[in-house]
């Protein structure tokens, strides 16, 4: 096989992967439906979109980079506090706050990536967890800046485009979060379906061999980690802006752990896994806790066990087995 043929075969492979599947188009077309069908649930829909974006960000490093993180909330919280502090001390225009949050989280992610890229496995879990806890304690002790345990007070957003205020029903909130989710999803999709994304999979599957074929690992790992940090920061900023609250809990371990559960529930390494996981987890939580405010966690636990036992690759992994082969890509 000549070099040209190899190249065109791999270009074809990437082009094939990058093509939009009809199911994807159907999925995105359904996302505005809550505006019409469930106008009382838009606040929930907005928070689902934010969680989905956060899950996609974790999927980039876990599902594609193969890095297990239990401290991903660090970037989420950093974005949340950046957006909150910006609106408090400068101005409440949402886009500038969102951009700044993305930059701050990205810079922090980039700086950390030098450490992250040299570790794998258990050590990495400990390090990411430790970083999350460090940020949490820092925010707790910097009470004059962050408001400490009471949460940051005085976050106030201006209307979007000077026109749409963040209303009680959540119309603006959902439109804003959904748009951000979609745009970030496009970026994530582009990244994972690029030669770079392909090399990441290589690193995930066998990092030694990647070195042997002349593809340096650490630079790629650092890059995807930074991209993921940016997206997590955006998700955090969205939560701050749509709810006008920031608390220590945005940096908490629970948020990182819940996120991992959501991703495993939906399916790791598929981008849509995070989205589906967020939709199912958040709706289940909302419904179960409405029926029984005291013992609803029981049902969440049952759901998780059922998924892990019957659908070990998550809901999307299970769906992929059921649907005809031609419908789904690996």
């Amino acid at each position, binding site marked *: 096989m000549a070099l040209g043929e190899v190249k065109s075969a791999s270009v074809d492979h990437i082009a094939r992967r990058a093509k939009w599947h009809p199911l994807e188009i159907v999925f995105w077309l359904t996302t505005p439906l809550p505006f*019409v069908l469930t106008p009382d649930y838009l606040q929930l829909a907005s928070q689902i979109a934010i969680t989905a974006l956060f899950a996609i960000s974790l999927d980039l490093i876990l599902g594609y980079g193969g890095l297990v993180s239990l401290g991903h909330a660090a970037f989420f919280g950093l974005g949340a506090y950046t957006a909150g502090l910006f609106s408090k001390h400068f101005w409440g225009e949402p886009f500038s706050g969102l951009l700044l949050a993305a930059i701050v989280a990205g810079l922090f992610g980039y700086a950390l990536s030098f450490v992250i890229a040299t570790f794998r496995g258990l050590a990495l879990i400990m390090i990411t967890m430790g970083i999350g806890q460090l940020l949490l304690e820092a925010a707790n002790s910097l009470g004059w800046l962050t408001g400490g345990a*009471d*949460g940051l007070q005085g976050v106030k957003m201006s209307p979007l485009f000077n026109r749409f205020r963040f209303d*009680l029903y959540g119309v603006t909130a959902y439109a804003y979060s959904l748009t951000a989710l979609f745009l970030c999803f496009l970026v994530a999709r582009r990244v994972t379906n690029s030669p770079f994304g392909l090399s990441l999979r290589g690193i995930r599957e066998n990092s030694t061999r990647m070195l042997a074929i002349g593809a340096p690992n650490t630079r790629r790992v650092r890059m995807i980690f930074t991209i993921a940090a940016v997206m997590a920061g955006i998700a955090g900023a969205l939560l701050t802006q749509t709810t006008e609250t920031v608390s220590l809990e945005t940096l908490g371990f629970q948020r990182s752990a819940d996120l991992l559960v959501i991703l495993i529930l939906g399916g790791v390494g598929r981008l849509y896994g995070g989205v589906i996981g967020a939709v199912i987890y958040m709706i289940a939580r909302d419904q179960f806790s409405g029926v029984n405010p005291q013992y609803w966690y029981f049902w969440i636990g049952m759901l998780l066990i059922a998924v892990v036992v019957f659908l070990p690759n998550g809901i999307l992994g299970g769906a992929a087995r059921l649907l005809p082969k031609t419908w789904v890509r690996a």
Partner: protein
Amino acid sequence: MLRLFSGFAAVSALVAASSAQAQVKIGMIVSYSGQFADTGIQLDNGFKLYMKQKGDTVAGKKVEVIRKDVGGIAPDLAKRLAQELIVRDKADVLGGFELTPNALAAGDVSAEAKKMMVVMNAATSIITTKSPYIARTSVTTPMLNDALGTWAAKSGGIKKVYTLVSDFGPGHDALNAFKEAFTAAGGQIVGSALFPVANMDFGAFVQAAKDSNPDAIYIWTPGGTQPGAIGKALNERGVDTTKIKILGQDELTGVSALKSMGDLGVGIITAAMYDYNLQNPLNQEFVKAYQAEYNREPDIFSMGGYDGAQLIYRSLEKSGGKADGDSLIAAAKGMAWQSPRGPVMIDPETRDIILDVYIRKVEKVNGQLRNVEFAKIEKVKDPVKAKMAK
């Protein structure tokens, strides 16, 4: 497009509201799960007990309660739940709120939707300033510590105090209130230390406090397992509570704290707004009913919930069943009633509670450790908001 939808939503809300005239809906936002579940459940128990005693009809309207679990400190969730309770469930009143961050977040919603909100536990002063429709039926941290500071200097015969406080937002608030009141009444702080939130070894702290030779040591901890460790350190370092008094807020000698401290707790003086041992007929009746219903003793959280339901009921009666925020908060302002903890009133200016603060001492009564009240400061108002008004 967006406008069209929000218009549609508003119209559907109006339709639903007019068809639900004969009832009043109360949305409770409480932690029923997670680390604070016990607090939330005690609060809700108190709330339920009042409703059980008075029936579920008030001023000709049927009271319906919708309960939502916020699962701990989660202001983003608390805010969303408040929004959903109002938008989706058409709640007229928001209640519950055992945690400050959650109450602050939901306060925005109360202000925007113009709905009454009753804070039944969260104890940070500023909460009631978040919305003109908020009233509180628990207490604020500064109220208790301000009362304690004044009492210590004026009636307690205490001139020199060493303070030992958890390095944590509410701890700082408590310390500031105590310090200001105590020094204003002529007392002197001879030294202070902040200990880490998760600290478990108090030996060195207690020794430093003892060495400064104070009349009393003021201690603030958020509860949990720390009171036990503090009791142990006081004992090991030979602090005689008859010579060096120990002062604190109710959590220091709460039910579980006393259990872990055992006899080492004897002599500790605390300020509180309620204890189930209070000797008055109304309270004895309340405790009996509570024990019969839930098989345990009521605590400060139960009291906040019980009086929270009481405030909503009384306000509804006074407004003639009108459940809009303006009517209800107007009715609530200045509302006064006899609570099992003594006479209470909603301050017409700040919408915060005015109540009697009890000074108690841990004693052994019939082989059981109890907080026995021996002094009372009447009609205490929140000192922080009183200062803000000046």
